[in-house]
């Protein structure tokens, strides 16, 4: 019996601890963050590191509204249903003020649904799906990163400059892949009516049969290729494509391939001359970025990844939004985040009032090999606000209730 009692006491003590902390003093602004730490570690671990860095820096500067930031992270294991449960835990049990996070689109959408339903603020960092701010957009959800549409749009513009007319697409068969191909085809076809798409490949996500896929693409004798594969799928595809000569004398336009998360593993087989979106990392030489990259390297002894950029910017954006709102009361924060400007290592960005999309931009450039490693060259940074469709189009896609 005594043992049972001690166990119970121990448990309740642990649960009560955050409450004690809060009562004792500085009353921090709590950010509850949910992400796929165990199922997508390659992206989310550098991302979490950078978030911690940002929190430290902001607190060193005196916090927000005179209160320090406190970050609580949770692992959703790649399952939206778990994310929703944990969102409840963070809000009801940990009493967080702002909910943030998600890497996977479905987790992001699930959290945004939760936010709308429970009238809580949710700031999505990574998820790319357009639905998050457009078709399924809602009043309580903001999204930082350039969306599938924005990435596909800039690549379609680049593709339109190429002479190629016979295109093929290869894309993982799920919502992200299908959306990317849809936008790319739509925008490129509009700009270049002479272009035709002669074949498409839809390997299952994470299970590409690269040899057969490359062979099938080769068979279509394309002049250019639009690729949406990433991660291990991309590695397999590039290797088979290199050996089988698929990429020779052909233009390749590729989503996200310039991100170090996906480019680095390709090693000395990283393709040269692909037009990609991504992140040039420490090659970005603006003062803001240099300071950030140096701090990151000093703290973690690693190079900043694309996930780091997103995590760092996410925390900064939240700090700016809360500061602008002047309170952590949800409805006021929604108003505060609308139009809130914040600094990121890539440049200044804003949460648009019209659709809550962040204007963090896209780096677009070419891939190249430097000392047996893939890098981005000839890149430029395009502000996110220039990549989005016109306000009328956006208003048409977004439910009226979202405003």
């Amino acid at each position: 019996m005594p043992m049972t009692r001690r166990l119970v006491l121990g448990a309740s003590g642990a649960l009560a601890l955050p409450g004690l902390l809060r009562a004792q003093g500085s009353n921090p602004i709590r950010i509850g963050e949910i992400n796929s730490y165990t199922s997508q570690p390659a992206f989310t671990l550098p991302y979490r590191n950078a978030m911690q860095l940002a929190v430290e820096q902001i607190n060193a500067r005196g916090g927000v509204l005179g209160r320090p930031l406190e970050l609580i992270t949770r692992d959703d294991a790649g399952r939206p249903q778990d994310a929703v449960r944990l969102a409840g835990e963070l809000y009801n049990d940990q009493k967080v003020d702002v909910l943030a996070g998600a890497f996977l689109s479905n987790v992001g959408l699930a959290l945004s649904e939760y936010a709308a339903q429970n009238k809580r603020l949710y700031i999505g960092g990574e998820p790319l799906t357009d639905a998050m701010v457009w078709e399924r957009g809602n009043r309580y959800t903001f999204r930082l990163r350039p969306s599938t549409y924005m990435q596909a749009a800039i690549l379609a513009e680049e593709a339109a400059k190429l002479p190629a007319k016979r295109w093929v697409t290869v894309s993982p068969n799920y919502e992200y892949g299908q959306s990317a191909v849809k936008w790319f085809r739509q925008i490129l076809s509009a700009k270049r009516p002479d272009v035709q798409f002669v074949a498409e490949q839809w390997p299952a996500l994470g299970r590409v049969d690269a040899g057969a896929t490359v062979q099938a693409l080769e068979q279509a004798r394309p002049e250019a290729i639009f690729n949406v594969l990433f991660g291990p799928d991309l590695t397999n595809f590039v290797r088979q494509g290199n050996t089988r000569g698929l990429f020779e004398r052909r233009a390749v336009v590729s989503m996200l391939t310039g991100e170090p998360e996906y480019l680095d593993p390709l090693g000395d087989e990283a393709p040269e001359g692909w037009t990609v979106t991504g992140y040039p990392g420490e090659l970005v030489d603006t003062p803001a970025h240099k300071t950030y990259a140096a701090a990151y390297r000093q703290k973690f002894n690693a190079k900043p990844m694309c996930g780091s950029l997103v995590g760092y910017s996410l925390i900064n954006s939240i700090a700016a939004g809360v500061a602008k709102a002047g309170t952590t009361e949800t409805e006021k924060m929604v108003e505060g985040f609308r139009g809130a400007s914040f600094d990121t290592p890539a440049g200044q960005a804003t949460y648009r009032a019209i659709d809550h999309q962040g204007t963090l931009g896209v780096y677009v450039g070419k891939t190249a090999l430097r000392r047996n490693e893939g890098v981005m060259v000839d890149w430029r940074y395009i502000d996110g606000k220039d990549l989005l469709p016109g306000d009328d189009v956006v208003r048409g896609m977004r439910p009226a209730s979202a405003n």
Partner: protein
Amino acid sequence: MDSLIPQLLTGLAGASSLFLVASGLTIIFGVTRIVNFSHGSLMMLGAYIGWSILTRLPRDPEWFVLGILLTVLATALIGVVLEVVVLRRVYRAPELFQLLATFGVVLVLQDVTLWIWGAVELPLPRPRWLRGFVEIAGNRFPFYDLILIFVGPVVLGLLWLLMNRTRWGTLVRAATLDREMVAALGVNQRTLFTSVFALGAGLAGLGGALSLPNASANLNIDLSIITDAFVVVVVGGLGSLPGAFLASLLIGILQAFGIVLVPKITLVLVFLVMAVVLVFRPNGLMGRPQAEAREATAAAPVIRPAPRELRILGLVALVLAAAAPLVAGEYYLTVLTDACVAVIFATSLHFMMGPGGMASFGHAAWFGIGAYAAGLLMQWLGAPMPVGLLAAPILAGIVAALFGWFVVRLSGVYLSMLTLAFAQIVWAISFQWVEVTGGDNGLLGLWPPEWARNPATFYWIALALAVSVALLLRRALYAPYGYALRAARDSAMRAQSIGLDVKRLRMVALVIAGAACGLAGAIFSYSKGGIFPTYISIPHSVEALLMVLLGGLQTVAGPIIGALVYTGLADILVRSTDLWRLVLGTVIVLLVVAFPEGIAGAARRLWLRGREA
């Protein structure tokens, strides 16, 4: 036409890779009867170990071969450790518990691999000779893929020699045919099992290492390869090496041409092949029927009416559960709601698996079908929650009836694998058919109506439904139907000879289990506000198995206890540590070793100590 030959060769190379992994799995199954879920993890380890070794060796072909052989030895050694430390302790447990233990191993190895090699995928830098190609029919064909094409048959040949020209091989073949007989012959079964496991693990390691020049070592290998390997082994016939080879060829080639002809449904294609093969050949292409006596060896204990103490305990638990909203915070109410869903999920699986004798590896399919039924009705017709909660079990039941036609003619592991295949088909449809299901973005906005939105109200609804379903299922099990179902499981022969329609009994059990599970899916969707393909994923199906087996298969209270314990354990672990997979996996393995009859089963044994069952 000129691309026919390269595509065929590509298919053959794929077939070889598949065979390497499947051969180890089928040998292990043949002898030990263990459905080794951790086989994919062994292949993943093979890839990582291979990477670690090969990146440290010179990059010439002879060193490559040496590195591969070292990798095979290393994974074989890991296989020995696994067998001695974990599996040896659970051979006496019912078959499915071994599966559970191997799943625990999968979880542990995921975290161990992440901890040792890190999160970033590790591709092997390819020296020039690995990038070479030959010109075939005007197309470049990778030199390495040509090597792979030959590796498969060579390994098959070596295994054939090993099986047919050595005493050890003779023992393995004999054990595959009749395990008891070999034991009776005085063969040291322990050594035999350990060596077989080492061979199987070594083959998985070979598959992993040989995949390196084409793919990277990454953390997703384990679960993505294990389903393919299962399919190959089942299509070929459990325990049959030539069967596994034939099935690898069939699937490899079909995959290569499927990509050209029907690029969007390659994922489903493999499972359709498996379903078709099992319909025409219920034991796979080259498998032998499993003797019925084998399945009935361990007689299930008698189910008696619950003792008074247990009924009182149940009633107390129910009162506490009903009073929970008065004390528990909002978050704990959602966890309790999840627990209610888990109770239905587990009891419905138990219904078909315990008394029905049909172990489903794809129970999440019904969960998902129920969820999507409610979700699509809302999306298309604006159907409110009560309609959704009604439609979910009906639709899941109807689909179960259609699917049942295929299932009830199979038995044992084949049946389990067909349920797995079916769940994967349902998953692939939900994941890839974006226009209808929303793909992985799911169906959103599925919230309860205003009157039920309060977490306490919704919890009470979930509790009422869970208790009703559990009681109804229990009632059916104590009624003539439940007895007849159990009779058909205990002895199909005897059941038929007293006039019972075994197939129809099992079919109805599947429909009832599917319908109940569909309801669980719908409740869950309303509590999460959306439906996602992850509801139908393999890990979710395994969760149902975990709950039932943890609680205990042979008691009616088992699945309920299992559902509660698992939900609580998972919730606490996920929130307290990033290493939750390591801890959960270890706990599962320990529980299987300590309580091979499940928690409720162990409690029952203690309770009955000194009395006759």
